[in-house]
């Protein structure tokens, strides 16, 4: 069904999203970006019955709402690396 550039909350960037319609008629945009050989896969759902204009407006609200999130994953990785670091002799 094609693709659409949309904001990915996981990547914190505008990325290409695959457009699909699920069994409930809901429109799903799924991020197709690949980082470190792992597909992002983050998706955004829009209820059935919305028009194109309504979805475009909701996509803008989605970006405004989620831009700037600070993930805790980097801190977890640093904490794990710190635990693994050998003590100086």
């Amino acid at each position: 069904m094609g693709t659409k550039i949309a904001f990915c909350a996981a990547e914190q960037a505008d990325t290409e999203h695959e457009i699909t319609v699920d069994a409930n008629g809901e429109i799903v945009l799924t991020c197709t970006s690949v980082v470190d050989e792992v597909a992002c896969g983050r998706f955004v759902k829009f209820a059935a019955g919305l028009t194109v204009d309504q979805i475009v407006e909701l996509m803008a609200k989605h970006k405004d709402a989620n831009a700037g999130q600070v993930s805790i994953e980097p801190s977890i990785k640093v904490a794990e690396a710190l635990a693994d670091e050998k003590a100086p002799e």
Partner: protein
Amino acid sequence: MAATFAFDRDHGTQTGSPTRGTTTSAGVTDVNWKNSDTEATAYSAAPITAGNNSYDNWLFGHFSGTYNQILNGLFAHTATAFGTGLTLKGTPACTGDGDRLLYTTPSATANSNLSTDMTSAISIGSGVAVCFGATGPYATGKATSITANPAYTNYLTTQLQTSGSAAAGDTATVTLTLQYDEN
């Protein structure tokens, strides 16, 4: 002395103006995203089929006890990752009456008003702003701080949305955090 805090939850058909749930469960200790709005129904008895969504969960904070002021509310998913095919959507930031989420009868339809993507664990500082008011989560008069007692947050609504790639079985147990300052 300090404020007494509890999470409460609204259920059932929307009623009143401003709208609220027909029933309120007080002192809830967890959020289980399931294919049901009934508090007493175990999540294992109301599983979400992959590709579908949970019923919206209309949680809110309830303050009582002794305090001068509650302010600086933030709400976020702060620990543990969800698996593939799971997206947690949540309430938008609330700074006052103009942007508080209004209660609607819970359903499994994707709630497009839940604009916050809460799937990733983030620092609480990146959480959505929470507002406070008297009377109930549904009431007008919400602001970023409150001196009234008791006090309530806006609805901290969440919904777990899934795709066909979601794995069967329980999701990971994640942590949702409501942070506030108290004077």
